[in-house]
Structure formats: structure tokens, C-alpha cells
């Protein structure tokens, strides 16, 4: 939840200053006064139409409207998760971290799953969008010496399986690829049930999912302690596992 100080009220919207120095336009509601401090959410942000001076043809407008209506319909139909929690992305380098994202791909929670993760400075990632958050994480991992060029990264993702989920998943994968472009990434998808199991065992979704594929999910010690490089090697060398079925292995110039 974000906080804003009301600095100016316009006809169509009002402007707040966040404690971090960011300014945002918000949708107007009753009782707003300059100098007030309020809570606001992403959905309260007012988006201003930018006049590009170009005429949009009528059929394009109709198309956009139809797509928007369809998107709203589909998202209300399928998105029944509690509060804002939409997707989970876990990352294991050796620090083991889990991000909980909302449906705007904003990080709403960061979970440190092992000691190495708690040595990282992760407090500033909450509230960032996933792309930015991952960029900052990558810098921090490099700064603390956890991530070497060509290092191994295990990524676990749990996201709704509907149309909207697929769009987000594609985007999330792109973001991971871009921000860890000089790493070897094993990207694995997990179900909601897997995520709950991982949570129960207090390990990342990626580690749980990999262990399940290797049929080692009852070996708690291995699941927690095995090196990421080794986990990926075991998955890739196991003839019973088709990587493209469980996710994707990404390595530049392989």
C-alpha cells in the first residue's frame, strides 16, 4: 500500500508526492484536500491521455474497446485469488528468494528463504515493478559476489493458467532473460499445489519443483542444500525429463 501527500488538486485528477519523492496523478474522490496524507493503490493512479496529434481510425477504437471489455471479462472470470497476490517467482543463485507479484507485475512481497538471501539488501524491492526489482537484485547479487558471469540461476514460476496468465508469463520470462542475460537459467513452472508444498518446506518453488522432477522431494536436506549448478546439471542430464515440457533452459551462445 502506498502513501501520498496531496500537493495539488486539478479538475480531472489530483497530484500526490510519495515519501520517496515520486509524484503521481490520482483519480479524484470526495474529501480530498491539499496537505492530506492518504493511502492509495495502483488502481487509483490516473492515466493521462497523451495527444500524439494522430487520428486513430474508428475501427481501431472499436477494436481496442472490444479487447478491453474482453480482457476485463476474462480477468474477472478467472482471477479469484485473494487480495493482490497474482504470481510467484522464485530465484535461486545461492541466495534463495521469492517474489510475490500482483497482476500489474509489481512486487508486493519479497521472501528471503535462506541465510545468504538475508545478507542481501532486498528491502527496497517491495513496490518496484518486477523488471526494476530484478535489475536491482541482479546488481546486488553481483555486488555481493554471489553471481558470476555464466553463473547458474534456477527460476520457479507459479501463475494462473488462463489467457491473461500466459501473457504475463511470457513477459516475466522475458524480464528474467534480459536481466540475467549472462547467466545459465533453468526456468521451471509449478502449480499452486507445488507452491504450497514449497512454502510448507520453507524452500523456493524452483527448488521444490526441480526436486520433484528428480524424484527427490522427500530428501529435505538435498532440496535445501544442493547447489544450483548441480540441480540444473541433474535435470539436464536426466533422460526421463524433457526440459521443454517443464519449462525452459536458457543459455546465451550455448
Amino acid at each position, binding site marked *: 500500500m502506498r502513501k501520498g501527500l496531496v500537493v495539488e488538486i486539478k479538475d480531472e485528477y489530483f497530484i500526490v508526492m510519495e515519501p520517496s519523492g515520486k509524484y503521481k496523478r490520482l483519480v479524484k474522490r470526495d474529501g480530498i484536500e*491539499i496537505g492530506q496524507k492518504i493511502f*492509495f493503490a495502483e488502481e487509483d493512479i490516473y492515466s493521462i491521455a497523451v495527444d500524439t496529434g494522430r487520428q486513430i481510425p474508428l475501427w481501431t477504437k472499436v477494436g481496442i474497446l472490444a479487447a478491453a471489455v474482453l480482457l476485463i471479462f476474462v480477468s474477472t472470470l478467472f482471477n479469484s485469488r485473494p487480495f493482490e497476490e497474482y504470481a510467484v517467482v522464485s530465484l535461486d543463485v545461492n541466495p534463495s528468494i521469492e517474489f510475490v507479484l500482483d497482476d500489474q507485475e509489481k512486487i508486493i512481497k519479497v521472501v528471503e528463504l535462506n541465510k545468504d538471501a538475508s545478507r542481501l539488501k532486498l528491502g527496497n524491492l517491495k513496490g518496484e515493478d518486477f523488471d526494476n526489482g530484478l535489475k536491482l537484485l541482479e546488481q546486488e547479487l553481483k555486488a555481493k559476489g554471489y553471481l558470476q558471469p555464466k553463473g547458474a540461476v534456477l527460476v520457479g514460476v507459479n501463475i494462473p493458467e488462463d489467457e491473461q496468465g500466459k501473457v504475463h508469463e511470457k513477459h516475466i520470462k522475458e524480464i528474467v532473460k534480459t536481466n540475467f542475460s549472462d547467466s545459465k537459467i533453468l526456468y521451471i513452472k509449478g502449480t499452486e499445489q507445488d507452491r504450497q508444498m514449497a512454502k510448507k518446506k520453507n524452500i523456493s518453488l524452483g527448488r521444490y519443483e526441480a526436486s520433484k522432477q528428480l524424484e527427490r522431494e522427500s530428501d529435505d536436506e538435498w532440496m535445501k542444500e544442493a547447489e544450483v549448478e548441480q540441480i540444473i546439471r541433474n535435470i539436464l542430464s536426466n533422460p526421463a525429463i524433457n526440459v521443454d515440457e517443464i519449462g525452459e533452459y536458457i543459455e546465451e551462445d550455448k
Partner: protein
Amino acid sequence: MLQKKYKEISQIEKFRDINEVIEGYMPMIIKTISDTTGKYVSAENSEELSIGLMAFIEAIERYEEARGEFTSFAKLIIKSRVINYLKKENKHRNLVSIDALKEQGIDILDTYIEPVETQDRLKEELDRLRQEIRLFGFGFDELVEEAPKHKDTRDYAINISKKVSKEEAFTTFMYAKKRLPVTDISRKFSVTEKILKRSKKFIISVVIIFYKNLNSVKLWLTK
């Protein structure tokens, strides 16, 4: 007791402290209050939030699986309690004590609620800030677009602005020419001109906040 009850309703959350659980649901609690009142929830007035929180705890205590999904159930209770509060508000104010919540081990409000300052003072300072930045040819609208998007860059810009506000030569130049002495600042504080130029409006606004001693705004900004 509360913790125990919560364990029953959600196996998923069972390892977590009750305050953490509430924190996870805070956006939902605030949104429900806001949807019910039709207004934004104040970050200073703890009353609405206390009502919402009490209602959320009541929902935990009263929840049974047969009632359906927990979140929908909690929303209903919060909505109903807030409506009751709004009705009563006009007749006699029924204050909810934060201490009563604390007795139940709920101390999360401290991190959410801002210390109450006089809104008049803040308004006065913000009006002043608006007038001052207008002298430089921009308004808050431009700051929405121009304030650095990245937190580190913003912190860096705020830090430079603080230093600039203390240098008489820079502030005199700034007010005389209505622009930042970019080259001089760059030399004095070893900052690249590119950074200064890219965030010049933002830096000017923060220099004004510090230079004109807009203390309440300063306090908000430097949290």
C-alpha cells in the same frame, strides 16, 4: 488464541505471525474501507483503519469454512462495520482504541499511521512550493513526468539538492537566472552534467524545499 484460529482457516499461513498475516491483507482491508466510504483512507486518522482492523480480526474469529472463501467473508464484515461506524459518527463518536488492539498483540498500526501534523501548515508550505516552482516555469504536473523513476537516482538527486541548497552562490544564481548552475554544480560535487540536466526540475523543487525551509514537506520527503 487469534493465531490459533487463523491457523485453522488457512494452512498456508500457519507459519506466520498474526501481524504478518494482517500485513498481507492490509491492501484488501484499506481498499474495502475506501470502497465503502467512497473516499481515500487517511494515513493520519487511525480511526477508520482501526475499525477495519477490528472487523478483520472479528472475521478471523467468526470464520468457518461453510461461510465460503475467507477474503469475501472478511470484506463483508469490514464493509458492515464501517457502515455502522459512519452512521454512528454523526450522533456520537465511538472511538476505537489502538491500545485495545495492542492488547491482542496487534501492533501493526504504528507502522501504517503517520504522526498527525497540522494540515494547515502543510497546505501553507505546499502552496508556497507551488508558487516558487512556478517562478521556474513548471508545476507539479511536470514533476510527475520528470522525477527520476529509479529510487537510487532519486535519492542521489535529493542528496545533491540538499548540498546545493546550502551553497549561497548556487541558490543566488538559481533564483537570478531561473535555472540550475549545472556546470558549477557538476564541478563542485563531481556529478555528471547529464544527471543534473535529466532531473533539473526535480532538483530545483527539492532545492527550494530545503532552501526555503519547508520543514513539514522536508520531513515527509526524507523519511
